């Protein structure tokens, strides 16, 4: 065993004691400071705005999408316009600039995740993203590891929102949670 691998092992050993991370390299609990302190607990929690109101594509597309500024301004042209953050947002919109949000949930490039089939199959947003309606600042709730993905794909019933299922007749297409490598890696 060369000194390099020994060194690596040593580092792995020490790093696991940092920050109380449960698993190394998965960024669970990652909570960056955002350029505008957007508060999900206020919007989704207190005011009960449904997720899809702003993340408009989650049920029909690969990306749930962080809302474009015009969506924010649908309300914030009139609401809370005295707050400095909202003024910052409005100014950016009027100048045609955007807000560089920091990505919280980051999958490697070789993973092709698609929101649509999950939402369509009745998986609640909270199942993966955690209690967002209680988060003042969003953090990564799940570890987003492959094992974690497969956990549900092997037992799809576990992840389903039963209220949704009652509302909707799910076809076989919706029920299937494939487990082959090519489901996500291609």
């Amino acid at each position: 065993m060369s000194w390099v691998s020994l060194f690596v092992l040593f580092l792995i050993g020490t790093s696991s004691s940092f920050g109380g991370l449960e698993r190394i390299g998965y960024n669970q609990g990652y909570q960056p400071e955002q350029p505008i302190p957007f508060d999900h607990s206020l919007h989704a929690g207190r005011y009960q705005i449904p997720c899809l109101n702003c993340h408009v594509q989650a049920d029909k597309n690969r990306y749930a999408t962080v809302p474009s500024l015009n969506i924010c301004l649908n309300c914030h042209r009139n609401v809370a316009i005295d707050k400095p953050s909202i003024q910052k947002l409005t100014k950016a919109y009027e100048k045609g600039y955007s807000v560089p949000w920091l990505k919280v949930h980051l999958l490697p490039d070789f993973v092709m995740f698609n929101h649509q089939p999950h939402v369509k199959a009745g998986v609640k947003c909270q199942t993966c993203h955690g209690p967002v309606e209680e988060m003042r600042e969003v953090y990564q709730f799940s570890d987003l590891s492959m094992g974690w993905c497969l956990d549900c794909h092997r037992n799809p019933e576990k992840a389903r929102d039963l209220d949704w299922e009652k509302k909707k007749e799910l076809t076989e297409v919706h029920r299937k949670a494939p487990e082959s490598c090519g489901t996500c890696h291609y």
Partner: protein
Amino acid sequence: MDKTVMETQKFWRSLEEWKDQPEAQEWVGKEFMSTPMAEDSADEDVARRDFLKLMGASLALTSMSCVRKPVSKIVPYANRPEEIEPGKPNYYTSSYAEGGESYGAIVKTREGRPIYVKGNPDHPFGGGLTPRAQAHLMNLYDPDRLQSPQKGDGKGGFQNSNWDELDDAVVAALNGGGVRLLTSGLASPSLKSAVSDFHQAFGGKSYEWDLVNYDNLKLATQTCFGKSVIPRYQFQKARMIVSVGADFLGTWIQPATYSRQFAEGRKPNESMNKLVVFEGLLSLTGANADSRIKVRPSEYTSIVLGLAHEIAVKSGRSSFNLNSNTKNTLSKYSDVAAKVGMDPALFSQIAEDLWKNRRQSLVVAGGLDSSTGTGLQIAVHLLNEILGNNGKTVDISHSPIVSFQGESDSIQKLINDINAGSVKTLVIHRANPVYAFGKNSEIAKAIESVPNVIYIGDRLNETAQFANWVAPLSHEAESWGDIEISEGVFSIQQPTIRPLYKTRSLGSSIMNWTYVAEKGPGRILNPDNWYEYVRARWKEKQGRWGQSGSFEGFWNRVLQTGFVNSKGSLDRAGSSQFRTSAVSQIRSEVSDGLELELYQKSGIGSGEYANIAWLQELPDPVTKVTWDNYLLVSEKRAEELGIEKSGQIVKVEANGNDVEVAALILPGVHDDVVGLAIGYGRTHAGRIANEVGVNVAPIIAWEGGKPSFTFQTNVKPTSGFNELANPQGHHTMMGRQLVVEATLEQYLNDPSANIHKHTLFSLWPKYEYKGHRWAMTIDLNKCTGCSACVVACQSENNIPAVGKKYVIEGREMHWIRVDRYFSGDANDPDVLFQPMTCQHCENASCETVCPVAATVHSDEGLNEMAYNRCVGTRYCVNNCPYKVRRFNWFNYSKVAKPLDKAFNPDLTVRSRGVMEKCTFCTQRIKYAKHEAVREDRALKDGDVVTACQEACPSQAIVFGDRNNPETQIAKQFSAKDSFAVIEEYNNVPQVRYHTKVRNKESLKTSSKGGH
């Protein structure tokens, strides 16, 4: 099964293999021996072993940090355009035009970036695209494109400038009078009117010119029918097709359109068409012929007239009254068959077949223009008239092709103008005559002598070197336009992206100049921009085209469908009175020396798009050579000339000049003919094309002010050697039964004729596929070998080009290749094409040897490749009997900006050390499934279309779910004429092929024999 055929028919891939030469064996032996340690020009300076050390260190660093590196950002739109949903493609109708060859296209965009082009299936000229039409989008992202206006010193030195400066200088020059405009052929009606406005403003006149104009054909049609157009051929209606040197499936006029039509008539039944080809070289059309006869190009005219003689004079039959003059002319051609050295009985039989199928046969002729080409085309018109084809399979008056607007003598006229001293300012748009005719040509000298030269083009090419100002031209995907392909059929060209750089379209530049000069008619001065101008022209014509309703409604309809057809059904064909007097203009001079025929390759064409690596690396459909042009020569002639082997440099002397180029010994070439492709040897096209191949410009013949591409030559071998990058020897499948062909008669008796059936058994129970089960069939009978699928796959799947050096080492990355097989003897073989891609075997041999289970089978029958799992042992490629797996030797994904914009974001861009191969376009399967879920329905047949299937002009590829008995694939997959390659291996491939059917008496057998 016909035993005799099986026993004597042998397929071979190269001359070396046919002769069992050691070279072929040598390659087989070392195919897997290449080692990364042999790299000597890896583009990174980290050597492989250091790389491993670094890997260790960086792993350590990432594990140590709690803060994520790199931090990614999400930057949403400030104001998201309504039509853009991130992650979803948008499709826009558009058109492709290069010179005159034009197609209706659909451009796929992702987040505002065009990334893929396919044919517009509803368009009359859009069923499929050529490789070039598909790849031309890459020109948009070409790092060597011009990014801002340039001020030149007229001698090749340039400095960056801006539009204001350029406009002022150009307008000052234009105001000085003596204006000439040289454009590439303008198929666009809007551009035509803009050019006429330009001349109204600044005086002068314009010339339109392309290297490939089909002037001969236009002139002949003018002479015979009084209309300077290219006939619209309808191959689908023809049951007997004779091509005399016209490569209509590969490069001639509208090859993708013709391929589709040809395939339509190619169904193996009683009315299957028959293709007879007379030619000197071995073209793609010749390779698809049922009967191919080798003749010299100078004999083309006499072949056509000989056939006319057989029918009209010898048998005394004709659909129209031949006068005695014509009969006298024809009677000189009574012994053509003997003169060209072919069997007179066969010749009579061809004439007989033509007459038997009169009014549903078709004769076409001619490659690039030649000095006797007009006569040849008149002869063809005469023969078609005798057969009654004009107005049936040949449309001359209803809606003929009008997109080829360039004229060959334009260059000579321009030279005359310049030499007469009447030209002060020369504006050149897109045309590149200095490349085409060489930097020592008359035109180059003439252009150099003009005081003000303004070049409008997308790069500082050979002609732009002489410019005082260069106005950078926008790509087609960045500008509005329109094309009249055939008379009365107008296609729209929609931009799909804003100009990436400070570029303008020709129309836009003209508008700016008239505006700055405050000259010209109101229609060009008033509109705000080029888009408004185009719309105004369409508005003017809306009524004339019989389109009712509001203009907005009409315009939206046009943008949606991509075209307007003001002519009614295009199945109709019309003709007018044939002028017999034309026959007197036929010239036929049979020569007896060695003839050189210049031709186009389907990838590179005339060389305008030579800087696209995909096209350079696209194996030529027939020779399979990449990254070069070469002198095609027959084996016998090579021996006589003293050419020892392919790759030896020869000196080609003609017309007082010479070029030195590598020779390629190709079976099937006439012993008295040699061939050389145009479009190579660019010097100012960009980093990819420069110095690739040899420019033929110096030896082009000039006659009567026009270039001629066929002439006498002398060839002398030299001691030089240039190894040609020919991937056909690679990935050999060791002589197992790979392709099956049958004659029509055999096929009609038994569709499974000649298919060698094997009794197979397995010790293990079969896996039961409960859901979908993806499969593909490829119809070898429809496949013409055009290789459009190769480029489409490259575009869809982010496949890199590797360069000549690595093609030679066998490291090309194409996921689908088109194998070429010969059968019969080396001097007169039959040719067969077989697209070969991952067969998604049920019992895949690659899967069992992967030590890390990176390639496994899915429950839908896909052989999946998990790139992130692959460690690059390459065991799988060693074990794959189909040789379809490709290894990333380098980090090809690190491309020069902005080429990365052309990547398809739906799938991984593979990096170094990873194995990859065809995935059956799994991203498209996923997309279709998700769309079905979105619409709450099950997948239906036709939802998933692979890129190769979409691109195939002849619709040879069928893909789908074979577990659903209603699908087309389920029927095709179990058809009697389908076979699996190397079935006895019991890999159970999910790609099956249909037998190649030849409409002839017997198949070629080889004197070598053996299966």
